[in-house]
């Protein structure tokens, strides 16, 4: 039970997990017959050049949202894996707002309403799983999986029917009005010479959300109750924490954060509603939260890492014949495996090591 020093818990252990994932992925690369160090070089240079950094940060924005969503739920020991569906619904919120209001309202107002609609729709999508978990004990893992599929079914139906742009074959809506979008950073800061990229104002919203999550979880009564509930349900009952309400509200906040992802993808980049824009970011969020130890600062760092992996991974397609960006997916899965499911593998070993040192140092 001796706690590990913080630098080990939030610094060394994630680093070891990352290393293990990279080494395992490296073995895959060797088996394919390529040089893993060359792959690594391409990943890094692909992610952090002047032209590509914006892309890296754009990917990281999605992961910030879904990573924070996962972390808030995990803090309360709720394994919600519904960020995919909630992000999808967030997109629907943005889409409906823009499609309905952009003919009449000024763009600024439309964007403002859309910025509210995304989290509200995301939260709404987790309301039923949350209530079922709180009052009927239906496992939120299973219900959120089901709701992911329901969300995608709903979108297929809407985009191939009621919301489809008339006269177009592919399932998507019409484009939103010209200015009903979050501005690109290269437009805002073009004067200081930022390269063109999909990076937009939503990264600022995501960072504000991260700060908000930190205050919420570590500096408010609500956050105290949330963490107490996560550690010990009985202690929460003793303390008089309204457990059911906490479960629902926590999941709603998680859903709202996941819905925020649509601000980046739909309101920031696509400017129309399309299918599958959540593209697995909901699951990446789980990796990000685990890697970042459910702490906003850690999540910011992990998002940057994963953003870099995604952007660098895209470069793999150009540089190699046999290795594609899907390698990043493997790395991502391995990171979840090592830092989540196998987190217990190193902790006892590390604790022994620390204890041994403590004994030696007297």
């Amino acid at each position, binding site marked *: 039970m001796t706690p590990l020093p913080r630098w080990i818990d939030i610094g060394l252990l994630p680093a070891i997990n990352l290393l293990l994932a990279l080494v395992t992925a490296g073995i*895959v690369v060797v088996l*394919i*017959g390529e040089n893993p160090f060359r792959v690594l070089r391409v990943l890094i240079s692909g992610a952090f050049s002047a032209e590509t950094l914006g892309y890296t940060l754009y990917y990281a924005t999605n992961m910030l949202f879904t990573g924070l969503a996962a972390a808030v739920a995990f803090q309360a020991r709720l*394994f919600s*894996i519904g960020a995919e569906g909630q992000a999808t619904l967030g997109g629907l919120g943005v889409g409906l707002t823009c499609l309905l209001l952009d003919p009449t309202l000024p763009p600024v107002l439309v964007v403002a309403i859309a910025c509210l609609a995304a989290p509200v729709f995301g939260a709404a999508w987790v309301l*039923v*799983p949350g209530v*079922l978990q709180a009052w*009927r004990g*239906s*496992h939120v*893992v*299973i*219900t959120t*999986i*089901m*709701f992911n*599929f*329901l969300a*995608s*079914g*709903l979108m*297929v*139906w809407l985009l*191939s*029917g009621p919301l489809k742009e008339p006269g177009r074959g592919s399932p998507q809506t019409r484009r939103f009005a010209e200015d009903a979008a979050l501005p690109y950073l290269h437009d805002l800061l073009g004067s200081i010479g930022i390269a063109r990229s999909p990076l937009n104002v939503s990264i600022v919203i995501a960072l504000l959300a991260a700060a908000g999550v930190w205050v919420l979880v570590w500096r408010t009564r609500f956050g105290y109750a949330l963490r107490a509930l996560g550690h010990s349900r009985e202690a929460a009952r003793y303390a008089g924490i309204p457990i059911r309400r906490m479960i629902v509200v926590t999941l709603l906040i998680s859903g709202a954060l996941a819905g925020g992802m649509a601000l980046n993808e739909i309101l920031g980049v696509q400017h129309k509603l399309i299918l599958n824009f959540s593209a*697995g970011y909901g*699951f990446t969020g*789980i*990796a990000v939260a*685990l890697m970042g130890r459910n702490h906003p600062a850690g999540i910011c760092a992990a998002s940057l890492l994963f953003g870099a992996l995604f952007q660098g991974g895209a470069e793999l397609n150009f540089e190699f*014949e*046999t*290795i*594609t960006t*899907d*390698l*990043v*997916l*493997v*790395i*991502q*899965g*391995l990171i*979840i*495996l090592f830092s*989540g*499911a*196998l*987190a*217990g*593998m190193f902790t006892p070993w590390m604790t022994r090591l620390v204890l041994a040192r403590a004994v030696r140092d007297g």
Partner: protein
Amino acid sequence: MAETWIDLLRLLDGALRLATPLILCAMAGLVSERSGVINIALEGKLLTGAFTAAAAVTLTGSVAVGLAAAVCAATMLSMVHGFACITHRGEQIISGVAINIVAAGLTVVAGNALFRQGGHTPPLASDDRFPALTLPFAETLAAVPVLGPFWGELVSGHTLPVYLALASVPVVWWLIYRSRFGLRLRAAGELPEAVESAGVSVTVLRYRGLLIAGVLCGVAGAYLSTGHGGGFVRDMSAGKGFLALAALIFGRWKPWPVLFACLLFGVLDAAAPRLHGLEVPLLGTVPVALVSVLPYGLTVVLLAGFFGRAEAPGALGRPPGRTG
């Protein structure tokens, strides 16, 4: 009348084909969850099985080798799941998510490395796929009304994995309820401490449960890419592993009800395209996209406890209490 009968049989025939991977995966999930291990990694194992089978068949030309390879690959993933959540007592859900993602990535990476077709395997010729088996009397009975078409259209003419799937249900039922292994497995899923104190290793039991799950998922995967389909395409499991999980819950972790749930989901799946453009009074056009996700909706309703409660095994997701 006869035409309606034939039409119905064709629908059911299609449903059975679509239900086959669900049945195999759901039985896999049943064995592992009855031992206390949550298995949301069914999807990843199914996908891996599908890829491995198609790749092995492409390389060797033998469906048997494909089947064996699929079984091996899916079992290996099962063992990884076990290593994380049995040996290291890791969070079972997280481990499942990880395996699903690794499988989604690795199948495509390996596919690219081997075949350079964007993650697909080359399409398989029909000789390289599981042949349809014609059961005895299919010809003889053909002339008999009602029964003849029933035997010929629905029962006969499937590939080996379809029959394996159907056979897996009574086998799993027998194992779970009528064998020593099943008694211990169920006990491990309800109260692992009781099993430990009886001197039986929960670890070994749960690993065996996962082993069986791996084998069944492997067969399901082989069916997907070398029986039902002709080759592997990326993400070809397309949520079937999760649908099997839904069926498992829908059937309340009991073999026969789970089979029923799989067949029900299969019928919905088979019927969906036929409903396309169909006008229903009051409702208008049937939204096919919504019909295809109906099973998920039904499962949520069941989980909500509106028609009886879905009682999961008591110790699902929980490692045994004893640590020292």
